[in-house]
């Protein structure tokens, strides 16, 4: 049965080894499941979240994961709308990663909210003025889009593809994909942006608050740009990790190089805007509410180093690497740049959500620090393990890498 499902013309590890691998992944995954059950069963007191930190790791992770999952929409955008044809060799994988990122985002929200069974209120009783509503709608719609994009891959499995209907259905889905991708891109632009709006409309929190364009604060656009800059890097990173585990090259280097280059340019653009934004915040917005910018960096661990690390080490350095052709083509450097870039996006999202809450607003507020507890970590990381499982299965049974056969002739 197993060998019948494996795509033709490629080699996969023995089934036993595959089961062992999945089994290993299941252990931390099950710990995550337990964390979920604990949080749902015993309520959120099982976490280190509190009234000062209503948002913690979960929301920061959500923002980060969605930015990383931005690779899916952005690759699709480049492939189907800008029509960079080489990217067809990685767009499938980007989609798989996207599906898991968005599943994770929704899954984490499901444990983050206090009354998960009432989660549908966000749709049914939607407040259209809330950034969170916008996020929820877009994420769920885009998740649907990603599933539709993922569906033909599943249908193209060797065994399923034998049946007439699925084969045909997959074929037509492929035909319609540019349209669907366009919808996805539209949705993504919005929700990446509204995620940026989530902290920045909070005018009671001068650290995150930004003015902006119409209903969208400036961070709305920064978030879109940063997601576009980071998503491809994440796709590259996961591809290289998969290659490492698969012990073979799966995507041609030129494809990766295109992504890396685009990523570099976007990152550069983002950094310029980010620096302008930070400076204008620091010199005009923050002082206007009575607080010099320095007061926001007065409490450790959220000192100035945070800003320096985020923009400098995790921003400018990868940007330089990605923009320089020579550095980019040095594989370890490329990996490093991707890592730094992804870490940077996580740090940015953490800062925008958690540091925003950490900075005391009332002058007599005490500063409290927050770090997530095991339940938060386990339930968040659970999605990493689940993603690894899904990617493993997808890689094994679905024709995800079109160049695999060519690169690894049997």
């Amino acid at each position, binding site marked *: 049965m197993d060998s019948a499902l494996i795509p033709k013309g490629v080699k996969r590890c023995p089934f036993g080894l595959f089961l062992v691998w999945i089994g290993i992944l299941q252990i931390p995954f099950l710990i995550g499941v337990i964390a979920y059950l604990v949080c749902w069963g015993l*309520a*959120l*007191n099982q976490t280190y*979240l*509190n*009234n*000062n*930190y*209503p*948002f913690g790791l979960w929301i920061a992770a959500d923002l980060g994961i969605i930015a990383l999952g931005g690779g899916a929409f952005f690759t699709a955008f480049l492939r189907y709308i800008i029509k960079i044809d080489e990217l067809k060799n990685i767009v499938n994988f980007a989609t798989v990663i996207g599906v898991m990122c968005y599943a994770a985002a929704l899954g984490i929200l499901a444990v*983050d*909210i*206090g*009354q*998960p069974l*009432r*989660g549908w*209120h*966000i749709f049914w*009783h*939607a*407040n259209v*003025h*809330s*950034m*969170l*509503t916008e996020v*929820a709608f877009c994420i769920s719609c885009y998740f649907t889009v990603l599933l539709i994009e993922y569906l033909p891959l599943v249908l193209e499995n060797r065994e399923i593809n034998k049946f007439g209907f699925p084969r045909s259905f997959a074929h037509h889905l492929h035909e319609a994909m540019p349209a669907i991708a366009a919808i996805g891109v539209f949705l993504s632009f919005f929700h990446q942006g509204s995620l940026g709006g*989530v*902290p920045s*409309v*909070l*005018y*009671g*929190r*001068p650290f995150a608050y930004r*003015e902006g364009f119409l209903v969208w604060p400036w961070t709305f656009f920064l978030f879109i740009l940063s997601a576009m800059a980071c998503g491809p890097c994440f796709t590259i990173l996961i591809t290289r990790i998969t290659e490492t585990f698969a012990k073979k090259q799966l995507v041609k280097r030129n494809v990766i190089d295109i992504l890396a280059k685009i990523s570099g340019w976007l990152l550069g653009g983002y950094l310029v805007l980010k620096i302008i934004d930070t400076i204008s915040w620091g010199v005009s917005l923050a002082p*206007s*509410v*009575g*607080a*010099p910018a320095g*007061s926001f960096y*007065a409490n450790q661990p959220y000192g100035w180093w945070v800003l320096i690390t985020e923009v400098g080490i995790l921003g400018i350095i990868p940007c330089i690497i990605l923009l320089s052709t020579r550095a980019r083509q040095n594989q370890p450097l490329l990996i490093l740049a991707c890592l730094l870039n992804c870490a940077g996006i996580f740090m940015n999202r953490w800062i925008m959500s958690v540091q*925003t*809450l950490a900075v005391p*607003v*009332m*002058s*007599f*507020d*005490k500063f*409290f620090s927050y770090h997530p507890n095991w339940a938060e970590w386990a339930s968040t990381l659970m999605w990493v393990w689940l993603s690894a499982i899904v990617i493993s299965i997808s890689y094994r049974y679905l024709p995800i890498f079109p160049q695999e056969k060519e690169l690894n002739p049997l």
Partner: protein
Amino acid sequence: MKEEHGHRPGKKTYKYGMVIDLDKCTGCGACMVACMAENNISFRKDETNKLVSNFWMRVYKITNGRSFPDTDVCYIPRPCMHCEGHGHHHHTPCVSVCPACATDYDHETGIVSQIYTRCFGCRYCMAACPYHARVFNWWDPSWPKGMEKYLSPDVSPRMRGVVEKCTFCHHRLQRARNKTYSEGRREIREDEYQTACTQACPAGAITFGDLKNPEHKVHKLVEEGKKKKIAFRLLEKLGTNPKVYYVSTKDWVQKAADVYLGEEGKPVTHA
């Protein structure tokens, strides 16, 4: 966000608000307990972690940050500010962000509501509130055996996983309305609607009423305080437009309400 509520022509509107005299406030805490007793607020065996403790009214103890013997302490009771928002923020910070319309700003009364059955606990509103006026039910509230007997039917007990906050004892407004309606009146008199903390305060430091009504004490106190430059609001500069005013003759207290740095350049701290 149903901010449209209450924009009905010809209807008498109120703007309920509070004036708290910090010179009179002794920090005794009666307001906190009265609030807990009035609003069926839950409690647990260990309430020492204030970060997960449930307070609608919280009295902050602040110091001027100076060393012995020039130290001074002031108590600041902090209910929900029932922000009106103004200028470019034409909305209450917490109301506009709620994704499920579980909270609204009633333009007829100026009260910011919270509906526990609607709330699904995303806590976005808590992130939006710079005053920490909103608290989350980290636990399922429970009462020791026999103690449910004192629960008031006027205030619906909350369940775990939802956000709650001071409501200016709006159930007392509902009761007052009942009374005025049954007497064929529409107007609510000042003494007919007072919050539990106002009533309990042994120092008489809290005054509650319609800020718009020149007959009401709060209106007079605000006017007088503004004239004497002793009235202020918390975080005025953010533009939240709170409806809770404070009065203090102490300079450092006035400053602590809005700026980040205290007199000597040292931060004013929570004692």
